[in-house]
């Protein structure tokens, strides 16, 4: 974390570095009433239909209560009525920015239950795709967070990269957001010809363009003013409410299941987990941005590893998981995603419980917002990266 300068707390209502003395007029028992301010469910700053009710004491937030459920689509119940091939087209939609990583979790869960060997090539390609998907996700948040703080431009830069990566993934999977590329036992089809060259080219290109984001956002004085020291999350609180992903890494805990509990072939390569120090909004954003670098490193390693061979295994006409239950956790772009899959031996799961990262992460919002100023509330809201569909399922 040497790049990060020491944090300085910016005085509310003052320009950076300048002190403002407040003078309290009166004897302090002037009667005031708290105002309750409802932001959302349709508000540009909540990127999605998320509602938050703030109890305000003047400009200060006394209490923040997230109201969720506006995007509840009943995934867990629907999964009980879809067979194992169909589920993956359902689950990649709950966190719509990480479609590939979601399907991966379900595929791994079913494979664990079937004790199925997945061909090596498929596993490496899955990793490649999962990392590209991670970058897609992070780019989106880089754009949208800057947008919430009032900077429109980074969004256009982020989509410049996103469009290239989406085109790349589309050439293999056929989808731009929802890939449905995983299959129980491997992948739907092999990579098209020339995919790896293109993938190498785009990874170099994204790497070359990443300094743009450092200059545009991270090195921006206004951005520093809006995020440094805003909404610090302590490690204890983060761990106690199950925060994961970049939001947790920002507090200095490098917990990442790709490292601590490697799945696929993550154990064979070097995975870097960028961490922050103070857990404030700036650190959260910093971790998110640096995770793109880390993912590009993984992608470069994967390119050299992909072996030849089949990408899927022979499946019976009807995939049926044996009776029993399993829990699979994977590192989704926003944190830890877990699927609890319980089967009674039928053609559909008996129960598919999701542990989604956004759901746990938004629980940090009331802690972060307490005592914050109203303009900071928006900054905090955007810095806890979440996808509404992933909260509500």
């Amino acid at each position, binding site marked *: 974390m040497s790049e990060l300068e020491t944090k300085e707390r910016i005085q509310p209502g003052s320009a950076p570095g300048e002190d403002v003395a407040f003078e309290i007029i009166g004897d302090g028992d002037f009667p005031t009433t708290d105002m309750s301010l409802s932001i959302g469910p349709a508000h540009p700053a909540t990127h*999605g239909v998320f509602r938050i009710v703030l109890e305000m004491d003047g400009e200060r937030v006394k209490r923040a209560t997230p109201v969720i459920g506006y995007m509840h689509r009943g995934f867990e119940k629907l999964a009980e009525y879809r067979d194992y091939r169909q589920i993956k087209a359902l689950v990649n*939609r709950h966190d719509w920015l990480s479609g590939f990583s979601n399907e991966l979790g379900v595929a791994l869960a079913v494979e664990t239950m079937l004790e199925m060997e997945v061909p090596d090539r498929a596993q490496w390609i899955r990793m490649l795709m999962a990392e590209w998907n991670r970058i897609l996700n992070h780019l989106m948040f880089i754009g949208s967070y800057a947008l919430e703080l009032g900077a429109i431009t980074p969004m256009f830069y982020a989509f410049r990269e996103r469009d290239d990566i989406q085109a790349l993934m589309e050439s293999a999977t056929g989808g*731009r957001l929802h890939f449905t590329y995983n299959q129980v036992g491997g992948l739907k089809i092999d990579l098209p010809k020339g995919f790896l060259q293109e993938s190498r080219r785009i990874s170099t290109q994204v790497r070359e363009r990443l300094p743009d984001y450092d200059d545009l956002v991270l090195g921006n004085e206004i951005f520093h003013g809006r995020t440094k020291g805003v909404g610090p999350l302590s490690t204890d609180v983060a761990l106690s409410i199950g925060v994961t992903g970049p939001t947790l890494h920002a507090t200095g805990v490098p917990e990442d299941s790709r490292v601590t509990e490697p799945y696929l072939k993550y154990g064979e390569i070097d995975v870097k987990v960028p961490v922050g120090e103070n857990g404030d909004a700036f650190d959260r954003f910093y971790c998110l941005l640096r995770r793109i670098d880390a993912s590009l490193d993984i992608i470069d390693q994967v390119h050299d590893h992909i072996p030849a061979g089949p990408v899927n295994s022979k499946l019976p006409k009807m995939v049926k998981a044996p009776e029993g239950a399993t829990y699979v956790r994977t590192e989704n772009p926003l944190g830890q995603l877990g699927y609890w899959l319980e089967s009674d031996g039928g053609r559909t799961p008996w129960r598919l419980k999701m542990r989604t990262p956004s759901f746990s992460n938004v629980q940090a919002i009331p802690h972060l917002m307490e005592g914050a100023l109203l303009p900071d509330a928006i900054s905090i809201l955007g810095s806890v990266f979440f996808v509404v569909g992933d909260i509500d399922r």
Partner: protein
Amino acid sequence: MGLMDQVELPQPVKYVFNWGRKYSLWCFNFGLACCAIEFIAASTSRHDFIRHGVIPFAHGPRQADLLVVSGTLTDKMAPAVKRLYEEMAEPKYVISFGSCANCGGPYWDSYSVTKGVDQIIPVDVYVPGCPPRPEALLDGIIALQHRIQNESLKDRIAGRRLDPVTLGADAPLALEGSSS
């Protein structure tokens, strides 16, 4: 609206008037779910619908002409969408973007999803797909502009709407235009 809702405008005036309206669609994006990401993609540099005169920076529904409902509408959300639609001033248009907004999409059997935004507000153009490509949205916008060009404002304000267009299912644009 004064005169416009009482008399049919003469053809040349109507032409110029509609031409002006169709190229300044202030758009309010009701981004609900995944499709909203594709909506944003359509507004950024590569697809750039601003070149078609769609301006995605409406400050709120009251300043908007076009409502794009992109994503899954849930029963809990439906009253808010209805209310925002009602806040918009006539003449107003609605594009339903994505299978979820059209008919419930992959959640057609879910207990909490509204099966189509047309159950609560009238839709002008349906763009199918899950998610539709940004190009499909451009196509939908062009279809809507075509419709605005040929429309009678008097009828519109009186609430006489044309039947909705479904991209890919209805007659090609040229035919639709000549029949109305």
